[in-house]
């Protein structure tokens, strides 16, 4: 599956609520198997919507989206969910964590939904072992910190926990939706470096989305959504 391109979009059209004026109209967009790509676009341009389509949570009105070689738009809802559970890691802007789960439980969350991820880390000693290993790599080793409710962690710490969760079980594609917008400049740069490093370590493609073009220098390649998207930007 890794030699397949990470993302391959053709003639994609999407409008919210089935409306007639599309928010997205993308003739073509390609991303390589282990590419680390920066996608830039102003607020409201449809970046998060595009990620929803790639993750298979939203369905396009027309066109095709191939993710890791699978045509998401022709898969059933259940298969798309399986695809996401098994092969995708998602990091949000903020509020990434489920408040009633511990740090480790948050990291192992994808393993609850994916047999493939459980199988992938069975050799490493199971989800909890793997979660602790990933957290340690991301600099979260303090037992006292790990025992705290996740709501008491700093935003930067929460985002690192979210990265550990996205990485567990070796997904092939990481999508990060403005994961650094709540961090200061230093923390932001360190976070992006860490994310890049972890993605290349685990051989996953990384699609990083932000409105802040200054971050583009951290990545292999940078794309502007307005260049991809033929639809006029509403906001």
């Amino acid at each position, binding site marked *: 599956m890794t030699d397949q391109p990470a993302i391959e979009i053709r003639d994609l059209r999407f409008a919210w609520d089935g409306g007639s004026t599309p928010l997205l109209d993308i003739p073509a967009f390609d991303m390589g198997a282990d590419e680390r790509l920066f996608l830039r676009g102003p607020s409201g341009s449809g970046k998060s*919507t595009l990620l*929803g389509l790639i993750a298979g*949570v939203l369905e396009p009105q027309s066109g095709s989206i191939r993710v890791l070689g699978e045509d998401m738009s022709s898969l059933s809802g259940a298969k798309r969910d*399986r695809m996401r*559970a098994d092969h995708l890691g*998602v990091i*949000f802007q903020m509020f990434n964590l489920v408040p009633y789960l511990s740090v480790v439980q948050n990291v192992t969350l994808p393993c609850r*939904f*994916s047999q493939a991820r459980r199988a992938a880390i069975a050799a490493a000693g199971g989800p909890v072992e793997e979660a602790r290993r990933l957290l340690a790599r991301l600099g979260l080793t303090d037992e006292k910190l790990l025992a705290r409710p996740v709501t008491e962690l700093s935003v930067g710490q929460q985002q690192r926990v979210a990265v550990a969760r996205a990485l567990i079980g070796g997904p092939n594609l990481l999508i990060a939706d403005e994961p650094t917008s709540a961090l200061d400049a230093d923390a932001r740069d360190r976070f992006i470096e860490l994310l890049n490093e972890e993605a290349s370590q685990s051989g996953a493609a990384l699609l990083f989305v932000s409105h802040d073009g200054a971050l583009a220098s951290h990545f292999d390649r940078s794309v502007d959504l307005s260049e991809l998207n033929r639809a006029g930007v509403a906001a």
Partner: protein
Amino acid sequence: MSGGSILGLAWRSLMNRKGSALLTLLAVALSVALFLGVDKARNGARAGFDNTISGTDLIVGAPTGQINLLLYSVFRLGNATAEISWPTYQDIAGRSDVAWTIPVSLGDSHRGFRVMGTNAAYFEHYKYGSGTALEIAEGRRFDDIYEAVLGASVARELGYGLGSEIVLTHGLGAGGLTDHDDKPFIVTGVLAPTGTPVDQTIHIPLEGMTAIHVGWETGTKSPLADTITEDMIRSFDLTPKTITAVFLGLERRGTILTTQRALNTRAGEPLLAIIPGVALGELWQVTSVVERALIAVSIFVIAVGLVSVLISILTSLNERRREMSILRATGARPGHIFFLMVAEAGLLGFVGALLGVLIVQAGLFVLGPMLASSYGVKLQGLGLAAIDLWTILAVTAAAIFIGFIPAIMALRRSLADGLTVKL
């Protein structure tokens, strides 16, 4: 995709909202406790009443309602409005189809406990439960005019033992002006506890009953009464002129209806003969209307409890949109979101109902002995019964069903929200 791990998520999510979850559990638990409490009280009272008399084929008294006769003769509730004469009693006792009779005379009391005049046949033939005979725990039966045998509760509550002297009260007052203080009785025996109104009764010979009323024929103490000595009384004919009721057993139970009809249609003094089981059945028919109303009300209360489950989950939905989209992003299928909501509702219903059952059991454990000692009716079937299990199952099922509402709402939202939620 394992269901157990989603159930674990549901449980943690509930624990994260402990305050509201606890209140909801309390609402469900109390509503279930009310329902089961009503049911247990009903069954307990029935079983207790049904156990009070057995082996007696007919009860005969002066004409009145059959429930009334049953209540005052067996349960010492209310009063006889009329009595039957001694010759009529002898007539009944002499019938060839009658095996045994117990004449009883009621009307006096001692410190709130009923006094019953009867004879040795009572100790021979009166049976309760599934045919258990009365047992003397201490001492012996009465065999002189001024002797008394106490029910277990009377002895315990008033602190009487063998040899205690007791002064009987005319009528049912708590004592005072109308005491028969001229003629105290000596306690010769104490009965073993039965869990029936027998425990609340002071038994004396019929002759003793007559004796304390010499000089009281008008209902109050005449000036003559004090001048009558015990020796004079012993020289009188103390055969009672009237008695309140007769318990009787037949030679052959098959003739029960014939004998009943014969007594009810007998020439001379009019009588009412009742079959205890039938009279109890009629009593239950009267009370069943009330019971059904109570059950209906308590079922509505359970419905209210379930609505509180719905409210608590619905109000949590808004603040949990983010949580749902995280779960979706990490691989949860719509079915998982649905199951999570339904599992929360089911857990609230199940744990709430379980708590309700425990509340009732604890209540019975504490209240049962109190009821038994103050009403003489032992609550039967205290333990867990099938209905407890069924109630837990039904409430859990109903809660799960109700959980479909927030589940469908959460599902729709999580599909519409896509991957991110704008709060």
